[in-house]
C-alpha cells in the first residue's frame, strides 16, 4: 500500500488482494444478514468493515482507512455489541418470516436492484483513471484537512453540532429520571404481603441427583416445571433447559446402560436418545 501503488492503475498485487479480501467482505456481509444471533452478525459485520478499511488504504485514502478502523470497527461496532448484551437475544429473533411474501419480495427487489446497479455501472464509461498521485502529493491527511477547513468548513461545523445533538439525544432517550424514592426492603416486603403472592423468597432452581443448574426449572410435586424457579432474563432469552425431557433422556440413558449390562439387544427407548442429545446441543 504505497502512494505509488495508489497513484497509477491497480497493480496485480492489488488485484489479488481485491479478489481475496473482496470475497471475504461479501461473505461477511452475508453473514451479517444470515446469522441467527445478533452477536454473530455484529462480528461478521466487523470483519467486513476491517476489510473495507484495507480497501480504503488501497485506494489511497489513508486517513479514512484509519478512521474506519478506529471509529467504525473500534467504536461503533463495540457500541453495537454493548447494546446486544444489554438487550439480549429475544425469542422473537428468529429467521422465520412472519409477513407473508416479504422474503420473496425482498429478494426480488434486492436482485433487481443489484442487477440494475451493476448494469448502470457497466454502461457508465469509467475507463479514464487518474490516480491520487497529485492529490495526495502533500500527504493525504494534509489534503483532507485543507479541504475540510476551507471548502467544507461549514459542513464540518454543522456535523460537529450534529454529533453534540446526537449525544444529547441519546442521553435523553436512554436516561430515566427516577421520579420517586426507591422502596426500602421493608416497604417491598410489606407490598408483597399486601399483594399476597410469594411471601417466601422465590423457590430455588431445579436441584437433582445428578446435576443442578440455574437454567433448569424446579419441578412441582406433580412433575410440572415451575416458572418461578428460573431467572427472568434466561426465560426471556429462552435459554431454559427442558427439565422433563432432560429427565427422560437421562432415564433412557440409564435403561440403556442397564440393558447393555444385562446383554440384551437395543430396544425402542433408543429412539429417544439422540433426540435428547439434539435438544441439549440446541440450547
Amino acid at each position, binding site marked *: 500500500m504505497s502512494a505509488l501503488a495508489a497513484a497509477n492503475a491497480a497493480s496485480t498485487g492489488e488485484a489479488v488482494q481485491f479478489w481475496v479480501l473482496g470475497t471475504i467482505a461479501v461473505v461477511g456481509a452475508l453473514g451479517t444478514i444470515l446469522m441467527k444471533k445478533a452477536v454473530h452478525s455484529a462480528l461478521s459485520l466487523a470483519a467486513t468493515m476491517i476489510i473495507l478499511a484495507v480497501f480504503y488504504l488501497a485506494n489511497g485514502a489513508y486517513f479514512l482507512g484509519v478512521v474506519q478502523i478506529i471509529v467504525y470497527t473500534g467504536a461503533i461496532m463495540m457500541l453495537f455489541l454493548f447494546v446486544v448484551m444489554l438487550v439480549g437475544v429475544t425469542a422473537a429473533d428468529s429467521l422465520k418470516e412472519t409477513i407473508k411474501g416479504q422474503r420473496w419480495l425482498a429478494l426480488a*427487489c434486492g436482485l433487481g436492484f443489484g442487477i440494475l446497479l451493476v448494469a448502470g455501472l457497466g454502461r457508465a464509461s469509467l475507463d479514464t483513471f487518474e490516480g491520487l498521485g497529485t492529490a495526495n502529493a502533500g500527504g493525504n491527511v494534509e489534503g483532507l484537512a485543507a479541504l475540510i477547513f476551507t471548502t467544507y468548513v461549514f459542513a464540518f461545523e454543522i456535523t460537529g453540532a450534529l454529533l453534540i445533538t446526537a449525544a444529547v439525544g441519546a442521553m435523553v432517550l436512554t436516561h430515566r429520571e427516577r421520579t420517586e424514592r426507591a422502596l426500602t426492603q421493608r416497604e417491598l416486603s410489606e407490598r408483597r404481603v399486601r399483594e399476597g403472592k410469594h411471601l417466601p423468597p422465590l423457590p430455588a432452581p431445579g436441584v437433582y441427583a445428578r446435576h443442578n443448574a440455574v437454567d433448569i426449572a424446579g419441578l412441582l410435586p406433580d412433575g410440572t416445571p415451575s416458572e418461578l424457579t428460573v431467572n427472568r432474563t434466561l426465560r426471556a432469552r429462552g435459554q431454559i433447559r427442558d427439565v422433563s425431557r432432560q429427565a427422560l433422556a437421562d432415564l433412557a440413558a440409564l435403561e440403556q446402560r442397564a440393558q447393555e449390562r444385562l446383554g440384551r439387544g437395543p430396544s425402542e427407548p433408543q429412539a429417544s436418545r439422540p433426540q435428547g442429545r439434539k435438544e441439549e446441543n440446541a440450547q
Partner: protein
Amino acid sequence: MENLIALLVAAPLLGAAVLLCGGRRLDRAGHWLGTLLAAASFVIGAVLFFDMLGRGAEERELHQHLFSWVPVEGFQADIAFQLDQLSMTFVLLITGVGTLIHVYSIGYMEHDERRRRFFGYLNLFLSAMLLLVLADNYLLLYFGWEGVGLASYLLIGFWQHKPSAATAAKKAFLVNRVGDMGLSIAIMLMFTTFGTFTFGPVLAATGETSEGMLTAIGLMLLLAACGKSAQVPLQSWLGDAMEGPTPVSALIHAATMVTAGVYLITRSGAIFNAAPDAQLAVVVVGAVTLLFGAIVGCAKDDIKKALAGSTMSQIGYMILAAGLGPIGYAFAIMHLVTHGFFKAGLFLGAGSVMHGMNDEVDMRKYGGLRKYMPVTFVTFGLGYLAIIGFPGLSGFWSKDKIIEAAFAKGGTEGWILGAVTLLGAGITAYYMTRVMIMTFFGEKRWQPAPDPDKAPSAEPGVEVHPGEMPHPHESPRSMTIPMILLAFGSVFAGGLFSLNSAFVNWLKPVTEFEHGHPPISAGAVTASTVVVLLIGVGIAYAQYGRRPVPVVAPRGSLLTRAARRDLLQDDFNHIVLVRGGEHLTRSLVYMDHTLVDGVVNGTAASVGGLSGRLRRLQNGFARSYAVSMFGGTAVLIAATLLMRGV
C-alpha cells in the same frame, strides 16, 4: 252586441268561482245563485238570438276578440269568440236545457250536504261548454273541450265515497284524454299545414293542401269526436258515467257534452268535405255505434244504463248524418237539438222515478208506476214517443230526415246506411218500449230497499230505511216543471224546425246544405220507418207486455249476455290495456331499480371493494413499507437507465 258574447261564458264561470271558493256560508243560497247565473246566460243567449234574427242571413256571424292568449313567435292563439248560427243553436240548447236542469237539481239534490259544490260544478260545466261552442279557433275549442271533460269528471265522481263512482269518473277522463290526443294532433297538423288554427283561415284554406293531409286531420278530429261523443271504439265510458247524479246524466251525458263531437265534425265540415276517406270513416263509426248502442240498450236492466245505450245510438245517428256531408250536417244538428230535449226529459223522468223508488235503478223492480207518478209518466211517455220517432213528434222529423239522407248518399253505401239506420230505428223502438213497459206498466215488482252498506250505489241524502218497501210518490214541483217543459220541447221542436225547413235555412250559411235525393221517394222512406218502429214496439210488447217480467234477470242468449257486458268491450280493455299496462309498469319499475340503478351501484361497489383490498397493503409493518420503497428506487433507477439508454 258582440260584447255580450263574453258574458255568456263569464256568467256561469263567475258562479262556479263564487260557489267553489265561497265556502260553507253559501250553502243555503248557493243553488239559487247557480241557477240564477245559468238563467242569466240563457237570457243573454236569447237576446243575442233575437238580435241575430234581426240581421240578414249573411252578416249574422259575430266576432269578439278578448285578448291574445299565447303570443309566441309564429304561433298566435287568441281568446276570441265567434257566434254564428251553429254556435247560437248550441248556446240556446246548452243554456236552456242547462237552466231547466239547474232548477230540477234544486229539488233532486235537496238532501245532499254538498249541493253548493254540485251547482258550482254545473256552472263550471256550462261555462266550459259555452266556451267550446263559442271559440273561434281550435285551441280555444280544445280549452273548452277539456273543460267539459273536467266538469264531467267532477260530476260523475260527485259521490266520491263510492269507489264505483270514482272509478267511473277516472275512466271517463282517461278515455276522453285518448280522444284529446286526436284533437291536439289535429291542431298540430293544422299549425304545420296552415300556420294557424283559427276556424276562418283554416276552413278557407282547405283547398290549398293535399287531400292526404286533410284526411289525416279529419281522422284525428274523428278520434277526438269518438272520445267525447262515446262513439266506438271509445264509447266504453258512457255506461259507467251513469254513476253520476241523474241531472248530470241528463245534461252532460245526454243533451250537451256528448254531442260536442257532432259539433266538432260539423264545424270542420269544410275539411271533411274535402277528404272523402275521412268522411267514410265518420259514417262507418256512426253506423257501428248506432247499432252497438242500440243493442246494448236492449239488454240493460238498469234504467239509466239503458238510456245511456240509447244516447250512444242516437249520437251514432248524428255522427252518421254529419259524415254524410252537406246533405247531413243540418239534420245532424237538428236531431242533436231534438234529442237534447227528449233524452234530457227521459233522464229527468228516470231520475224522478228513482227518486220515488228509493233510488232503485233496476227496472225489473219497478212496474205499474203510472198510477203513482202521473206527471212523470206522461212526460216520460212523450219523450218515449219522441225518441222512437212517432210520427209528428220531434224525433220523427229529425230521424226521418237522417234516414232519408242516408239513403241519399247513393250507391251501395247509401243502401247499406239506409238499412242500418232503419234497423236502428226498429231497435230503438224495441228497447224504449221495453223500458216504458217495465217501468210504468205491468204489476208491481217492488223490492224492499237494499241495505245502503251492502249496496253502495244508493245515492246519499235521500234517507233510505233498510228493508222498507218503497212508496212511490210524485216528485216536487221543482222537478216536475222542467220535465213538463222538456216534454213540450220533445213534442213540438221537431215540427217547428221542419216548418218549410226553417232549421235548415237557418244553418245553411254555416254548414252549406244541399238536398239529398234518395233513390226511393221520401214517402216510402217515412212509411218504412213507421213500419219498422211498429214492428219494434210489437216485439217488445210481446216480450214484456204480455208476459210477466221476471224480477231476476234470466240468463238470456249469448248476445244478451254480451250486450249486458257492453258487448265485452270493457273486458277487452281490461285484459289488453289495464292488465298489459300493469305488467309493463311493474316490469319497468323493476328494471329501473335493477338495471339503470344497478349499473351505477355496481360501479360504486366495485370501487369500494378495490379500495378495501388496497387498504390491506397498509399493514403497519415498517419492513413491508421498506420493501415498497426499495422496489420504488429500483424502478426509478430502471427508469433513469432507460431514459439515458435510448
